[in-house]
């Protein structure tokens, strides 16, 4: 039976039922009483990055991070700041002395996690980060960032077990071969800046004819180093890498992890073999190989190092290039 305004009264009945029901039926109340109760956040939710270490006894010692600075370079809003640790003699250590993440800048994109070859940085799901200040208080330092693998397993069991299995497999492979077998990280490879089609440095949309383009490319390659590197950096479509602490040597224009492999090789063209080899490295000075990039290249060129698969950040690309270069020089 319908009469005018029946819908209004039906609505009032519904709300009255809700009102009374909410006192008797706890199931109806969807609100979570936050400080006392918490919602179990989904496993794949993410907030800000943290650094994984393996053993509780020695968080700094068993930290997976080797201060390779790939994440610092790749971070789109540039919220990561890394300084590599050095011992008294100034020899670089494979761990960061300073590792800061400004979480007021971080946009939680997870790119640092994607590019890390060591599974050292992962996304947290802790959302209680409020502070009383807006500047220094929101910068997380190394002690705040370090969290155990156990914690990682707790918050993201599926992902962490996969990572653990992979790391174990790598370790076993390494132990079994005890030799040149390169651990192939299963993690997604770092997105490589594709070598520009028109030689190197000129953007696709720059208003040049093909001839001009060619000339410019040649000019920029052969031009004085400063010009080339400044021009080359934006051309690769990557943010300029502020490699704090380790000033790029003036005569290594390719020593810039933001460049593509082809660009680096072009920059090192007509240089000695060691320079070419160095240009093939990932340029992060990560010391995964036991040297810095220059040292590794020198060692290969000098013949003291025969394993060409040690450059972890460079992955297969670097390994293949190193092989080709060595074949070309007739040493292998």
């Amino acid at each position: 039976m319908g009469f005018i305004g029946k819908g209004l009264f039906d609505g009032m009945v519904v709300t009255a039922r809700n009102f009374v029901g909410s006192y008797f039926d706890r199931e109806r109340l969807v609100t979570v009483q936050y400080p006392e109760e918490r919602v179990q956040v989904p496993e794949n939710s993410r907030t800000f990055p943290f650094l994984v270490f393996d053993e509780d006894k020695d968080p700094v010692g068993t930290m997976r991070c080797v201060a390779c600075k790939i994440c610092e370079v790749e971070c789109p809003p540039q919220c990561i700041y890394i300084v590599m640790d050095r011992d008294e003699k100034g020899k670089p250590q494979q761990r960061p002395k300073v590792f800061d993440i400004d979480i007021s800048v971080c946009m939680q994109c997870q790119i640092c996690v994607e590019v890390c070859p060591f599974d050292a940085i992962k996304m947290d799901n802790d959302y209680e980060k409020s502070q009383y200040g807006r500047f220094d208080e929101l910068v997380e330092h190394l002690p705040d960032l370090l969290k155990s693998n156990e914690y990682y397993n707790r918050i993201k069991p599926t992902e962490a077990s996969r990572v653990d299995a992979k790391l174990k497999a790598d370790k076993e492979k390494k132990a079994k071969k005890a030799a040149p077998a390169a651990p192939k990280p299963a993690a997604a490879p770092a997105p490589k800046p594709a070598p520009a089609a028109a030689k190197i440095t000129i953007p696709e949309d720059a208003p040049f004819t093909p001839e001009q383009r060619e000339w410019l490319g040649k000019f920029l390659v052969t031009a004085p180093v400063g010009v080339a590197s400044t021009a080359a950096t934006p051309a690769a479509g990557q943010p300029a890498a502020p490699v704090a602490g380790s000033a790029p040597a003036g005569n290594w224009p390719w020593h810039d992890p933001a460049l593509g492999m082809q660009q680096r090789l072009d920059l090192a063209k007509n240089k000695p073999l060691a320079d070419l080899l160095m240009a093939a490295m990932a340029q992060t000075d990560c010391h995964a190989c036991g040297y810095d990039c220059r040292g590794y290249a020198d060692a290969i060129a000098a013949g003291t190092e025969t394993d060409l698969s040690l450059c972890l950040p460079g992955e297969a690309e670097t390994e293949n290039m190193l092989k080709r270069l060595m074949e070309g020089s007739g040493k292998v």
Partner: protein
Amino acid sequence: METIHQQLRIWFANAPDSVLLWVSIAIPILFILSVFPGIFAYTTLVERKALGRIQNRFGPNRVGRWGILQPIADGLKLLIKEDIVPRRADKFVHFLAPVIAVIPSVLLFAVVPIGAGLIPVDLNIGILFAFAISTASVLALFMGGWASRNKFSLLGAMRAVAQVVSYEVPMVLAAVAVVMAVGSLSTVAIAKAQSGGILNVTRWFVFQPWGFVGFVLFTIGAMAESARTPFDIPEAESEIIAGYHTEYSGFKFALFQMGEYLASIAMAGITVTMFLGGYNGPGSGPGIFGGLLSMFWFFLKLGCMIVLNIWIRGTWPRVRVDQLMGFAWKVLLPMAIVNIVAVGFWHYLTFRPLAWVVTTLWLVIWFMVLTKLAATENVKPRTYRYAS
């Protein structure tokens, strides 16, 4: 007030008369200023709790047990908030508006009898006074909206003025029906006319056909007048941010809210007086015990009206602006006029059963006709093209 004066004269026979007069003036004022703002504060709490429960939430429950200190916390917070005045605002009017918003609302309580023989001032033009005062409240909204120099504020103010002026008319006409039946404009006389019958209940006007229609009309009008939710067009937050109080913060904002709620409570009090029997209820009457009981009944009914308001706010969607005026002028106003004729029937047909039949039939038939006329189009059930 006069009764207090006489009582005081009996109790303190040697005190000077002028002192007693001032005391007897001060007592009702203090009573109004202490009780009704308290009711206002806890109405906000009850409203938030009830709305929460209606939406299957808890509502405020942090400050004190069951959030019982929430109004105090709100007040403190608003007191210490920064008071912002827009740079190009009309500073003086901007300051004046919230003050003016409260005054008419408080004045309204002067004519509401809260118990048998308990009324601040028994004006013989009580109802007219109430309407005159409540009209003035629209000025505060207008001043606030205009002085802010903000388009949304101004839009809200214009809407408020148009709405209040339009809904005033059916509301007054609904009250005219009661005034006709009682033969007096005094609120005390109206309340007294509803006493008697079985348990002091059956002679409430709401239990008569014309009284019921008048009650519905008056409640709708009162809701629109105090801009409560189905008619909160002047401050529709999804359309014009907050309407006339967009540019208000801190305690000025609190004053606006207070004026609005006090007006709503006072209107509920007048509705109770005019239609729900006022302070009449089982056991109410003269004497201390009857007086206390009558006060209890009045405040119980007032609470029921407030809860009804909250319930409606939690349920019904907002009226569309373009339908608002049509509803007032095409449905409420003719219905109020028809209702006045119904009171005439009621008055002259002294044989009650016949009067019941005639007035009911008259009202029902006109209701049908009006709804037929007001329906602009044939509304069919909605069909969904993309959603199943």
